[in-house]
């Protein structure tokens, strides 16, 4: 049997094949040229992943190497509700919620509601404690999974919170060292671009582009964790006992300005910043300005002795008050002392005596020494949110201001400024810039912070004279409650009134403070304790001195400083 095909049919068939071939060729040419990149991208997207590799945030340690803050990856629990089914295909959302609720300390109905919300993917709890995550993982529940997320941990809890600051949910450092050194601590993220198989595993033979993350620098602080713990413990106890509104303590090494401890009350737990109020986040030791009161008399007398207008034995007749600028400025309870030396002015904390000394010195020189001691300007400590305090320009002084400023009214300072000024007296007359970060450990080695001597403020002789006078103030004078067994202490108390919004002073409210250093002959630590509105008003500065004694006793013990008295 033979079949015949006409030439016309053959031509049609051939034409159809030709057209089909041309169409296919054109399509092929299109995908090979114009559409090539699109196809390539689609294919690459299926196997290629380009990820940002997070840098490890640096560790913060105290001066002896104890960890104060570090970052570790913790497991975050997520749920894919659609996958919550058993083998028979029955919904298990309720059972899953009931199983994990007691472990998470959450109500089962709250979890069930989250699973039933219709969301495809939901975080159940982020950054779980390791033990909790392990217990949930052991249940092997369908529809639950874990994802690693970095968490900043503070092993000592709230100790040092005001110095350390914290890291917010976006990974940015806030306040304290975390805020000031955020760029150094954060490091630089890297990049990893690799091809992956369907199981999301990297292919060893695939494309691989990796830029290694540069981890953040580790910081070693000047803070001594033992001293810091003692300071915070005593400050908290004192504030609670005295029902004070707030308090602050600074401990400095006068030899180079290193900050050994800074505490502020109220405080917060850096791991639970969300529950802290704004006032607790404020480091009052560096950002709270207050009228210092009588602790400033030491500065006034140092200036006058350094200027050579008085000596410790210079005498005047105290009648209980002084008149300056047409105003009468009284001693405490306007008590008259009669013939009084400059040493006794300090030991008895006589306002009229301070006015007498300031009168000898003059406003211009007093202002110059205040500036030299660093009042009215930031100390430059390497912490966020420092205040500079207020010392009005000399041109704005009224005549009476010479008198009031001489005993610490009419200007405002921070506790850290006062500590730095007393450190200058303690170390022989040099003002150092306080600093908190002792060294940074980077990839290229360790960078140590060199202490910065800002300026010489008084001569060595003046500083030695003041140390002796302040020692007398503690041994025989108004600050006797601050004396320590077997250690010489130099210091001065301060009871300052609190100005109100209308410019007057608030009745029955004081700021109680003590500033001093130990041992007086070879000072190793400077302490400033400030309490706002302690309730035992009649006792004045006693709460501050008691806090100083407790803190100094522990600090000297931890620092193994040898007693200098029998």
């Amino acid at each position, binding site marked *: 049997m033979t*079949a015949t095909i006409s030439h016309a049919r053959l031509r049609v068939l051939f034409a159809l094949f030709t057209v089909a071939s041309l169409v296919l060729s054109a399509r092929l040419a299109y995908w090979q040229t114009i559409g090539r990149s699109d196809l390539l991208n689609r294919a690459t997207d299926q196997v290629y992943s380009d990820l940002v590799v997070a840098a490890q945030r640096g560790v913060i340690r105290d001066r002896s190497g104890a960890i104060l803050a570090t970052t570790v990856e913790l497991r975050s629990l997520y749920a894919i509700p659609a996958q919550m089914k058993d083998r028979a295909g029955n919904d298990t959302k309720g059972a899953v919620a009931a199983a994990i609720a007691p472990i998470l300390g959450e109500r089962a109905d709250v979890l069930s509601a989250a699973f039933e919300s219709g969301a495809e993917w939901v975080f159940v709890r982020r950054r779980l404690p390791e033990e909790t995550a392990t217990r949930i993982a052991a249940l092997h529940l369908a529809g639950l999974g874990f994802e690693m997320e970095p968490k900043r941990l503070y092993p*000592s*809890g709230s100790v040092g919170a005001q110095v350390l600051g914290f890291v917010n949910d976006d990974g940015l450092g806030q306040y304290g060292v975390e805020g000031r050194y955020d760029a150094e601590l954060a490091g630089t993220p890297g990049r990893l671009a690799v091809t992956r198989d369907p199981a999301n595993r990297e292919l060893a033979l695939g494309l691989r582009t990796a830029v290694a993350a540069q981890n953040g620098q580790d910081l070693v602080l000047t803070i001594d964790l033992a001293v810091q713990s003692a300071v915070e413990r005593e400050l908290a106890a004192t504030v609670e006992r005295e029902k004070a509104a707030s308090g602050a303590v600074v401990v400095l090494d006068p030899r180079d300005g290193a900050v050994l401890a800074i505490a502020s009350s109220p405080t917060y737990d850096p791991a639970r910043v969300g529950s802290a109020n704004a006032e607790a986040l404020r480091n009052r030791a560096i950002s709270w300005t207050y009228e210092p009161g009588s602790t400033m008399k030491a500065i006034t007398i140092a200036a006058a002795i350094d200027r050579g207008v008085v000596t410790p034995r210079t005498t005047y007749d105290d009648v209980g008050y002084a008149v300056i600028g047409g105003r009468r400025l009284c001693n405490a309870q306007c008590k008259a002392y009669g013939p009084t030396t400059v040493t006794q002015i300090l030991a008895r904390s006589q306002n009229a005596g301070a006015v007498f000394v300031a009168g000898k010195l003059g406003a211009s020189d007093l202002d110059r020494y205040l500036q030299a001691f660093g009042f009215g300007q930031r100390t430059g400590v390497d912490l966020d949110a420092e205040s500079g305090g207020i010392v009005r320009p000399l041109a704005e002084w009224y005549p009476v201001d010479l008198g009031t400023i001489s005993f610490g009214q009419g200007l405002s300072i921070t506790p850290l400024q006062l500590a730095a000024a007393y450190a200058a007296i303690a170390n022989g007359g040099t003002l150092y810039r306080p600093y908190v970060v002792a060294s940074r450990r980077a990839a290229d080695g360790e960078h140590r912070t060199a202490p910065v001597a800002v300026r010489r403020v008084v001569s060595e002789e003046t500083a030695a004279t003041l140390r002796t006078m302040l020692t007398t103030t503690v041994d025989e004078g108004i600050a006797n409650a601050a004396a320590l067994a077997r250690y010489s202490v130099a210091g001065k108390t301060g009871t300052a009134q609190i100005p109100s919004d209308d410019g007057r002073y608030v009745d029955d409210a004081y700021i109680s403070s003590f500033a001093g250093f130990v041992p007086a002959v070879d000072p190793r630590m400077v302490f400033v304790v400030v309490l706002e509105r302690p309730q035992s008003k009649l006792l004045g500065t006693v709460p501050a001195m008691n806090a100083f004694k407790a803190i100094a006793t522990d600090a000297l013990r931890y620092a193994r400083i040898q007693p200098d008295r029998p």
Partner: protein
Amino acid sequence: MTFAQAVRAPQARRVQRRLHRQAVPHHRSAKRHSRRIRGASWEIRSFALASGVIVACFLLVLLYLAQATAVSAAGYEAQRLAAQRDELRRQNALLVIESARLDSPARVEAEAQRLGLVRAATIRVVAAEAVAAAR
């Protein structure tokens, strides 16, 4: 011409050529026979060579695949070990943090209070100079 005729035409031509060749003299046939033998050996050699090349290529591809598979397997193993290393590092970091927490002076203080311990009122300090002088 029908489609069947068109298909059969080459075969018919080959049969005609064969009949024509059978009609030529014997000496020419012997000569062609020897040429055919030489031609056949060349074909065998070519076939063998081509087969050899194909087998060699096949073996090379097999070798490549074996190596690629081994590298991939090693890559997966390296990834598994890297993940294991990272997890161990994480566990170690958690232990270091736990150690720091336990060493914290504030915790020690609280624990001491819980145990009823009291702070020593005085601590005797022996001056180093005195000890040195006694020696």
